[in-house]
């Protein structure tokens, strides 16, 4: 019995020990499970943080992607618009593709037609012709509000309605969009207007960045319009200028032709009159010579004196008539230049000899600075001699006593240049242009004393030009003059 009791007791003790052990194990496991649960909860909390951060990052990424896409689209659009120089072409650059990149499906651009006092639609994407009509009617009814908006150069949108005009609330209904941006398009010149963009995408609300982008786009649109208008204006001005130039050229050609006819008639007239004058002049001179020779008996000194004058004036008249005939001949091309190889040094020396007496009378020093064969050209000897006689003759005439006259020559690539300078009275500046004209005489005391026809330098100019050369003069009153002329080597 005792054994049984002891056995039972021992059993109870073992069970109790096992129970305590089990309970301890359960407690341990519970603690482990609690720890696990806690870890899971903590992990879940961490997951929440990860998810929230990840969503923010994704939002930022999306925003950044959108910005990059928009900027790319804006850059492409700007480049395309700025290369267009035609107004309608500029608007056509706004394509559905670009708009989509900017995040909009609808676009409309209206410009105020100041002549017809109405808004003209220049582009609409996302609207059919039927849909755009009510929008136009709405703009017609509210034109003052929109004109004020354009004038204020503002941008309004579904997120920044100013409320000032009180018409923004209606825009989504009229333009059938959820979000919109309207920005004024104000070129410096010509009609202004506005650019409308809109979207029905409720998920991607517009933000201030979009407003900025559309404002930039509208400004660039205005700039492109400005450029196109400026180009148009310049183009039209150029066209008009070209027309005027053509017209004026035509007028000038006609005038030149008339002038040539008149000039030819003048030459013909001078030729015929000169010829007619020469015959009686020859008779007058002949009779005067007979009378002066005493062939018709002795003459009283008074009559001889008068006859001398008749003879002298007749000579001058013959000289003038001859000059006139020469000018007319050269101008009309009837006078052919008989060209031969000329040594200009020899010609200068010959003319120096010819006029030597007159130079000696006034003690004028005549120098020729031409070395050997240096200056030779192909030209008409007789005519070139006349050139030298006229210029050196004039120099003698206008150079006071003890003066100097010098002839020099220099060669250049295609010809030679002859300079004949004197230490004479010089030519007033205002007379420099006219001295090569026919019958022009410088207004000075010498000319009043010394007789001249006013044809000498005109003849010289005609001869030089007939040889393909040029003549000009440099002079300073009181310091003498230098006449320069060129002659081409080949003539």
């Amino acid at each position, binding site marked *: 019995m005792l054994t049984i009791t002891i056995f039972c007791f021992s059993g109870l003790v073992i069970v109790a020990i096992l129970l305590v052990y089990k309970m301890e194990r359960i407690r341990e496991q519970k603690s482990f499970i609690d720890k696990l649960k806690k870890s899971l909860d903590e992990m*879940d909390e961490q*997951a*929440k943080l990860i*998810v*929230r951060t*990840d*969503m923010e990052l994704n*939002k930022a990424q*999306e925003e950044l992607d959108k910005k990059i896409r928009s900027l790319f689209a804006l850059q492409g659009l700007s480049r395309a618009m700025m290369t267009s120089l035609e107004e309608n072409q500029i608007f056509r650059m706004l394509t559905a593709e670009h708009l989509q990149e900017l995040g909009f499906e609808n676009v409309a651009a209206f410009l105020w037609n100041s002549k017809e006092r109405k808004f003209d639609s220049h582009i609409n994407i996302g609207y059919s012709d039927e849909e755009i009509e009510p929008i136009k009617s709405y703009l017609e009814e509210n034109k003052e509000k929109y004109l004020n908006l354009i004038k204020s150069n503002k941008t309004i949108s579904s997120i920044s309605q100013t409320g000032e005009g009180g018409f923004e609330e209606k825009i989504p209904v009229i333009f059938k969009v959820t979000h919109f941006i309207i920005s004024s398009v104000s070129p410096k010149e010509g009609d202004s207007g506005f650019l409308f963009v809109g979207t029905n995408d409720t*998920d991607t609300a517009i933000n201030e960045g979009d407003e900025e982008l559309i404002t930039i786009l509208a400004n660039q649109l205005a700039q492109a319009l400005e450029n196109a208008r400026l180009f148009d204006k310049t183009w039209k001005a150029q066209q008009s200028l070209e027309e005027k130039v053509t017209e004026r050229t035509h007028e000038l050609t006609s005038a030149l032709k008339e002038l040539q006819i008149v000039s030819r008639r003048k030459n013909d007239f001078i030729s015929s009159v000169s010829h007619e004058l020469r015959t009686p002049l020859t008779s007058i001179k002949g009779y005067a010579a007979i009378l002066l020779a005493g062939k018709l008996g002795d003459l009283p000194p008074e009559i001889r004196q008068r006859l001398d004058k008749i003879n002298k004036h007749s000579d001058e008249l013959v000289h003038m008539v001859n000059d006139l005939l020469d000018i007319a001949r050269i101008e009309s091309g009837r006078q052919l230049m008989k060209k031969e190889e000329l040594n200009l040094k020899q010609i200068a020396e010959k003319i120096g000899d010819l006029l030597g007496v007159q130079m000696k009378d006034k003690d004028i020093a005549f120098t020729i600075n031409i070395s050997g064969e240096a200056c030779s050209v192909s030209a008409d000897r007789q005519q070139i001699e006349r050139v030298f006689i006229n210029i050196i003759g004039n120099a003698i005439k206008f150079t006071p006593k003890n003066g100097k006259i010098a002839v020099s020559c220099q060669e250049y690539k295609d010809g030679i240049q002859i300079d004949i300078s004197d230490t004479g009275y010089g030519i007033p500046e205002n007379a420099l242009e006219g001295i090569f004209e026919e019958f022009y005489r410088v207004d000075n005391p010498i000319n009043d004393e010394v007789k001249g026809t006013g044809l000498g330098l005109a003849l010289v100019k005609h001869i030089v030009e007939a040889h393909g050369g040029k003549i000009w003069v440099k002079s300073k009153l009181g310091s003498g003059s230098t006449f320069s002329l060129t002659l081409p080597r080949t003539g």
Partner: protein
Amino acid sequence: MSINTGIGISKNRDALQAAGEAIHQARMNLLSDKIDLALVFTSNDLAHSTVLKTIRNSLPEETPICGAASLAIITNEEEVLKHGMIVVLFSFPETIYFNPAFIENISMKTPFSAGEELGDKLSFGFKNIRRDFGVIFSDGLIRDASAFLSGLQGKLGSSFPLAGGCASDNLKLHKTYIYYDNSMPSDSACGLIFGGKLNFGIGIKHGWKPLGKMRLITNSNANVVYEIDNQPAAKIYEEYFSLNLNQLRKELKRISILYPIGIFLEGEDEYLLRNLLAIDESGALIFQGSVPQESSIRLMIGSKESCLDATRQAAEEVKKIFLGRNINFVLIFNSASRYTLLRREAEKEVHIIKEVLGKNTPVAGFYTFGEQAPLKSINYQGKSYFHNQSITILGIGD
């Protein structure tokens, strides 16, 4: 004779011209006068009845046309086109059999009965021929796409391999279109059953990773989840994002794409994803695809890297099945969510697929509002499931 394909692609924004260009190119590239089948995928802006008419008129009368309109299309040129279309013409050897079928007005039926109807029509021509696999193109807005698939499996067999995708729109969930013959219906589905002497391989992956505690669906019906861990279902999202119901609704699109729920699948590498479509007034969550009661779920998180990694794994799965044999054509059903997540890097997926399956392997595909593909684990006996956020790659060879 082997399977010949001719692919035509057009980026023309004019629907009529695009169709003309694509079909002309496809015919030129097909090395056969015999045209047995045409697959057409277009971006939504080209979803126009004239497109189908143009293609129909360029093909023999008996050639079936199947396809879908989508957010974007995947082309053989390793491009993802937001505006464009691709036409694939097939010329099969006599030893390959296929049967096309079409059903419409799905919303007027239960999704399950609509699935059964399509299953019936698909199996019609295959009475005495072994069926190998099926391809399904369905509307992207079917109420319960899982039930539709169950209906199909009711007729074709629960372990019958199906690969498919639902047409998508520009994420507005307004209207989607499938292409069948010369019509472009919504609320419809079409499919093809293949049999005979051909090989196929299906790879599916998504790349999303589980995050946080495992939770239990304590009350759900089809695609509506009322309670999770005996709490109103929306509470899981409220807690994770620290947002109230209204704020959650505003962020719904982002949450749906980036943070779906994943249903734990015993023996599978990945969880079965479900996109959140809506949150009702009571806080019940409406998903794209069914979420069975008593299933264990977790919140999922994805990144571009994990997404692209999953694409490579899916392609590797197909390659493994083919054991070096020739792949004549690869059809891709890619989730629209992946396109939204990857954006400018979307083309990398096509590049990876071509890299794994061969640069010269013809490829075409479109973006989907849900994909169909079998699970791999033995536990599921090859049964096809409705997936979200996944890329399904179907390789066909002879």
